[in-house]
């Protein structure tokens, strides 16, 4: 009897210690080996630049005990790299950059394609901007000129972008519907190919992110005529938003981070905290946001997951309208 009680007490004490120890361990989760940081697009593109900037800022600010090793796994509109991450289920030492295009490409590709549901969303970091850009000597002075011309000649003006079913294709469709016009959307493989086609006069206008056209804009070879955003961009105060002229074409081009499904809650919390500290650093503002003209937009894990889901739901309708989704 005495013996039994003693056993009970010891077991209780032991278990209590165990709970504390494991609890302490869990709250203290830290990566123990280098993190594989997948950029599911080719070197030189927006996701690659983001991944490499993050790796260098986190190292410079000493925010992580282990290095982040950027690995480009390009192809299939980002789906190849995303698939590789999805398949490493439960591995807390893998991260991937995430943009709306990955969610939309998965919708269009259908069966077998990795959706956001198979990932743990860590956080949203920034918003990229989409602008309509024309050549400097273009006969279109303003976006109104373009609308007027395409009302006269419906379906004849060409606009280039980076791939069907992707952000700029969706923007085009939303704009067309709102303005009651029709463009010829010409898909290219990269932003570099788009600006090349514009400079060569092969298309009338293109969709572009600021880093893709700013060098040519500074040399007065191209000029932006509109931005798909609620407010004007501080870098381009003279460029009107499409909303100003009565067309609610805004696009929420988030740039965020995801991890495989099934990683420990503590690991997800560790990364969320790490990235929060990163976006608060001045290095992030100087070396990333300012340099590549992105807007700051921090979203925590829960909020980011909600935004990604909402964005996917909204793009479904436009994709159906474009005949890319049944």
């Amino acid at each position, binding site marked *: 009897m005495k013996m039994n009680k003693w056993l009970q007490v010891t077991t209780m004490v032991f278990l209590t210690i165990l709970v504390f120890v494991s609890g302490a361990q869990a709250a203290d989760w830290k990566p123990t080996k280098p993190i594989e940081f997948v950029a599911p697009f080719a*070197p030189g593109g927006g996701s690659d630049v983001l991944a490499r900037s993050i790796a260098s800022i986190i190292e410079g600010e000493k925010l992580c005990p282990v290095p982040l090793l950027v690995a480009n796994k390009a*192809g299939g509109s980002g789906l190849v790299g995303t698939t590789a991450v999805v398949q490493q289920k439960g591995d807390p030492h893998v991260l991937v950059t995430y943009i709306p295009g990955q969610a939309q490409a998965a919708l*269009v590709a259908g069966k077998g394609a990795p959706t956001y549901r198979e990932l743990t969303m860590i956080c949203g970091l920034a918003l990229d901007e989409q602008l309509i850009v024309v050549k400097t000597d273009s006969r279109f002075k303003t976006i109104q000129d373009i609308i007027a011309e395409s009302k006269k000649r419906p379906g004849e003006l060409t606009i280039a972008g980076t791939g069907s079913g992707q952000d700029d294709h969706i923007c085009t469709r939303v704009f067309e519907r709102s303005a009651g016009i029709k463009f010829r959307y010409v898909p290219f493989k990269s932003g570099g190919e788009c600006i090349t086609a514009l400079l060569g006069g092969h298309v009338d206008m293109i969709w572009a992110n600021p880093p893709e056209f700013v060098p040519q804009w500074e040399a007065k070879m191209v000029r932006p005529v509109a931005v798909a955003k609620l407010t004007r961009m501080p870098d381009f105060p003279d460029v009107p938003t499409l909303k100003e002229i009565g067309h609610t074409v805004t696009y929420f081009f988030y740039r965020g981070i995801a991890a495989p499904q099934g990683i420990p809650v503590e690991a997800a919390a560790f990364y969320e905290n790490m990235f929060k500290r990163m976006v608060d650093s001045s290095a992030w503002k100087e070396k990333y946001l300012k340099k590549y003209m992105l807007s700051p937009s921090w979203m925590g894990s829960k909020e980011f997951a909600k935004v990604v889901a909402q964005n996917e739901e909204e793009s479904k309708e436009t994709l159906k309208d474009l005949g890319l989704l049944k």
Partner: protein
Amino acid sequence: MDLLQNLYMGFSISLTPINILYCLAGCFLGQIVGVLPGIGAPTAVALLLPLTFSINPTSAIIMFAGIYYGVAYGGTITSVLINVPGESSTVMTCLDGYQMALKGRAGAALSVAAIGSWIAGTIAVAILMCFAPALANFALRFGPSEFFGLAFMSFGLLTVFGAEEPIKTIISTLIGLLIATIGLDVVSGMPRFTFGMPQLFGGFDFIVMICGIFGLAEVFNSIEEPEEGQLIKEKMRLRDLFLTKAEWVASRWAILRGTIIGFLTGIIPAGGITTASFLAYLAEKRVSRHPEDFGKGAIEGVASPEAANNAASISGFAPLLALGIPGSPTTAVMLAGFMMWGIRPGPLLFQTKPDLVWGLISSKFIGNLILLLMNIFLIPLFVMILRVPYTILMCFIVIFASVGAFTVNNNFFDVWMMLGFGILGYIMRKLSYPIVPLVLALVLGNLAENSIRQALTISGGSFSIFFTRPISVLFIIVGILAYLSPVIRWALKGVRGPKVEVS
């Protein structure tokens, strides 16, 4: 005399000891990267980018340029020695270079590649220096309809015109085109022939395919011939390692032709180094007096594509420097690098950063010279590999090709795919199907398909876009003549035939 002044300023920057050191480092790294099939110049540059934030951007860009053209030199080595192209741009070198190695002329193949690359590189830098802005503006005239014309013409010249076995050539081309359609379609975003496997969404990487079709297929083939021993049995003398006079005479014009073709292809935005080497090889075979020797160890078949890939790797800088647009994956990474260093490359670069531009241009003269010397002196060492017994060398090739396929996307799936392509290459060789049309279709298939669809979208479905633009109409006409060449030849024979019989 602005040019000489600028050049003087350039050399005063690139000849400082520290910049020579960076140039040397870049060339050396490029050489190594070139030898390894899975790692290409874009990956190498991307990996090194973070290390360059603390150094002077001019030094960094000199180093990266060294990597970029060093790769073209390095890829040759494995192409010649073990039939595994170290880079996609050295695929064509396999065809005759490896055959030369089997005949004990590996040293000559490597020398002509190094010398040809050097000559092409130096000429290309000189032209780039004088005409970069004009060339870049010319390149802009290439839109989707011109790209399609170029691909259409290349297929015609290669597949039908002068083919020994037209049916087999066409089948081989079609297999290549079919493989090229696998993956997500850029125009519609839909997956094609992926059988629900997400790994196939990206299609097959070119390196994965050629490591299999060339390297592995070679190994499979040699398993059947259990010949003990080495590729080169006799003891090599030093003079076996270099060019003979006859070989030099045969290759000097090939080098020049390769330079011109390579340079022009390189400045076209979607052209690229690989396409340049293909076109140069095809052109060389067409102008040659002994086209039947191609594929059996013709030295022109090494000289021309090697000159072309180096010329293209240099002319590819014209759009980057003059317009700030990336003409190739590597220049796209460098563009990103410029941004990270806080420089906006673009049309204004010549004015705002003349030290960087001219330092870079002049460093290319130095870098090419470094690579020439490095390669010539190392040839005896490389050729030693061929003395390794083939049974051992075979294992080495398999390891080498597998590592190459894996590192392309850090994905083991690609290694299995490479095995599949090895079997395909083996079967094709057994049934004597030509491999070049297949590989050309893999290189140009996507370009041809995407550009015709882009062109037709722009024109609203009208084919007139191909016939109303001077450059594209020229390509299309040459292409049509090539496709009709069997008919033309047959018709000519019909007219002349009886007369010959009479006489």
